């Protein structure tokens, strides 16, 4: 066990994926984010330089190249950078990659990983703070990973690469410095579709993804101080979704807050809330509260940006409301 940052754990996971299978290639080198630490990302570049290609600023083109390469059996991980840049590549990500397997009834696979950093990063302003995972969840045929801890990012990047399906891999600039334990003595494998109960509790279920996982844990501490015992369930992957794990928790607590840093309407929290309202209704003892961005573009100034960012405080307030 070693304490390391999310960023370092991701670098380790990517290196392990490269070492494990020589058909893994990287397109783009910006996995480390805006302030990628050379000490963490340098070794990867040195060791696997011949499998890293730096493309021009042509997201649609190079994502298409990655899709085409995946159809032939390569396993590209594409670093698209900020989530909004994936909009440029939307036709390839949402309307080519996910159709290959279904469209050929299983003859052709497209094992590509689209890696992007989503969400409110601090002064990303109107166009660089977008979290597109809900849009991709509305696209059938894509797997989606939203790891919220160092161990999860390391394990899931390898699972994403091994998967034969196109996978959206979402991290968050503000997760990069997050520190957690990673066990390098094992592969640290994590299957897609298995939720992790990050904290057990009996009064309220907080379903949280990506950056909202640490915020939910922080909220749970605060709530504990108020006598509310919160369970934090982290689905870790949206597709496949571990619905059972979520419903199991809700069956025990009867109360739910869904926390996600996407826009509220048709967001990640909406889907999880709708699923619970459909399949776990009998367990519910209170309204399902969503903690999300309040349907507003992301403003530049910190005061406004903070105001619309879903935080531990919002989770606490929502949990208090449903436990009242």
């Amino acid at each position, binding site marked *: 066990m070693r304490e390391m940052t999310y960023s370092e754990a991701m670098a380790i996971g990517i290196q392990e994926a490269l070492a494990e*299978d020589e*058909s893994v*290639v990287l397109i783009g080198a910006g996995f480390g984010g805006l302030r990628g630490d050379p000490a963490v990302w340098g070794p990867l570049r040195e060791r696997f330089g011949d*499998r890293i*290609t730096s*493309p*021009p600023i*042509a997201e*649609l*083109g*190079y*994502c*298409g*190249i*990655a*899709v*085409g*390469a*995946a*159809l*032939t*059996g*390569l396993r590209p991980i594409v670093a698209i950078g900020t989530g909004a840049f994936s909009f440029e590549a939307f*036709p*390839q990500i949402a*309307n*080519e990659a996910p*159709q*290959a*397997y*279904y*469209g*050929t*009834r*299983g*003859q*052709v*696979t*497209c*094992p590509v990983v689209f890696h992007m950093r989503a969400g409110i990063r601090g002064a990303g302003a109107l166009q660089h703070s977008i979290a597109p995972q809900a849009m991709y969840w509305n696209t*059938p*045929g894509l*797997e989606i990973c939203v790891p919220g801890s160092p161990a999860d990012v390391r394990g899931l990047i390898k699972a994403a690469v*091994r*998967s*034969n*399906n196109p996978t959206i891999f979402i991290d968050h600039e503000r997760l990069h410095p997050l520190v957690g334990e990673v066990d390098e003595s094992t592969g640290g494998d994590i299957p897609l579709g298995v939720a992790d109960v990050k904290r057990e509790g009996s009064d309220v279920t907080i379903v949280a993804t990506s950056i909202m996982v640490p915020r939910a844990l922080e909220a749970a501490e605060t709530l504990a101080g108020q006598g509310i015992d919160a369970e934090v369930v982290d689905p870790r992957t949206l597709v*496949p979704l571990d619905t059972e794990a979520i419903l199991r928790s809700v069956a025990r607590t009867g109360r739910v807050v869904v926390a996600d840093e996407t826009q509220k309407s048709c967001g990640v929290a909406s889907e999880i809330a709708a699923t619970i309202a459909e399949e776990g209704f009998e367990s519910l003892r209170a309204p399902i509260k969503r903690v999300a961005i309040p349907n507003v573009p992301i403003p530049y100034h910190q005061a406004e940006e903070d105001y619309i960012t879903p935080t531990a405080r919002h989770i606490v307030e929502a949990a208090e409301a449903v436990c009242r």
Partner: protein
Amino acid sequence: MATAGTVVHNLKSALHRMMLIRRVEEQVIDLATSFDDLIRGHYHVYIGQEATGVGACMALGPDDYMFTTHRNHGHVIARGGEPGPVIAEIIGRTTGYNKGRGGTFHVIAKHLGVLQTSAIVGGGVPMAAGAAFSARMRGTDQVSLVFFGDGVLEEGAFHEALNMSSLWNLPLIMMCENNSVPQEGRRQGEYPTSSFAATQLADVASAMNVEAHVVDGSDVRQVGELLAGLVGRAREGEGPFFIESRINRWPGNRGQFPQLIGGPHRMAWTWNPGTADTRLQDWLADSDPVSLLCRSLVEEGAMTRKEIEEVDAAARQEAEEAREFALSSPMPSPESAMDYIFAEGETR
């Protein structure tokens, strides 16, 4: 623009493939117009463009990749696809290449190196560049050939892929079938398409340091010779290449629903275009790649009219059998719609 070397190829088998495409597409139009429920939306046929598909595919090896478009039926047959599974796919039968999942827009044939068929204008070129990129990364000498219409140059995706394939010297052959030019306009140096500003499509490729060629899309020999040279050079690392194949559109190919003007092609029209529907006569005389090849083979004494008519009769019969095969094939069951959404396990 460079010139290609000469290559020996089998014109008789090319003729057969071209006729097969023609006869299959006629069946497709007939199926679409005779039945309400077989091809419910619009669709696209390859009549009039056969020389480009067949000439180009003759140059490919078995391990090469080929990408196509919404106008894919003919490309897949040119690449060696069998008419039965092609028609079956077009009408959605389980014996189709994708077991009826893709339909007319998405005939895909993995065993032929046709891995994904995008019906999105501009969808195929980046993926084809990706297959070429993959060949490069894996150190094989595979080539990736992509067919696309002139409309693709209007989409930004093309330019992005053009840039990267040029920067990285990918073994990519971009075969643009320009069916937008009326011959008169072409002679007068007008815009090559109604909605593209370049005087010559090839200029766009040349500006990006991609070697560009123009070829007469009605002449299968010209296409075949050019491609044989370029495919070889692409294998040697001299790619990518851009080709504009100039096609005079078949008069039945107007609008979104093709029309078999005057009925299925008659070989009598080939020998004597004046006997055809007046709307077809000029096209048969100057531009129909099948008729041009037939007449030149006879003129050269390479084949007799009778021999050619036998080839056609065989192609017609194959197409008819393919139609029967498709029509008598089972439809997918409703519930099978939920199959194959995600791949299980690992293929490695």
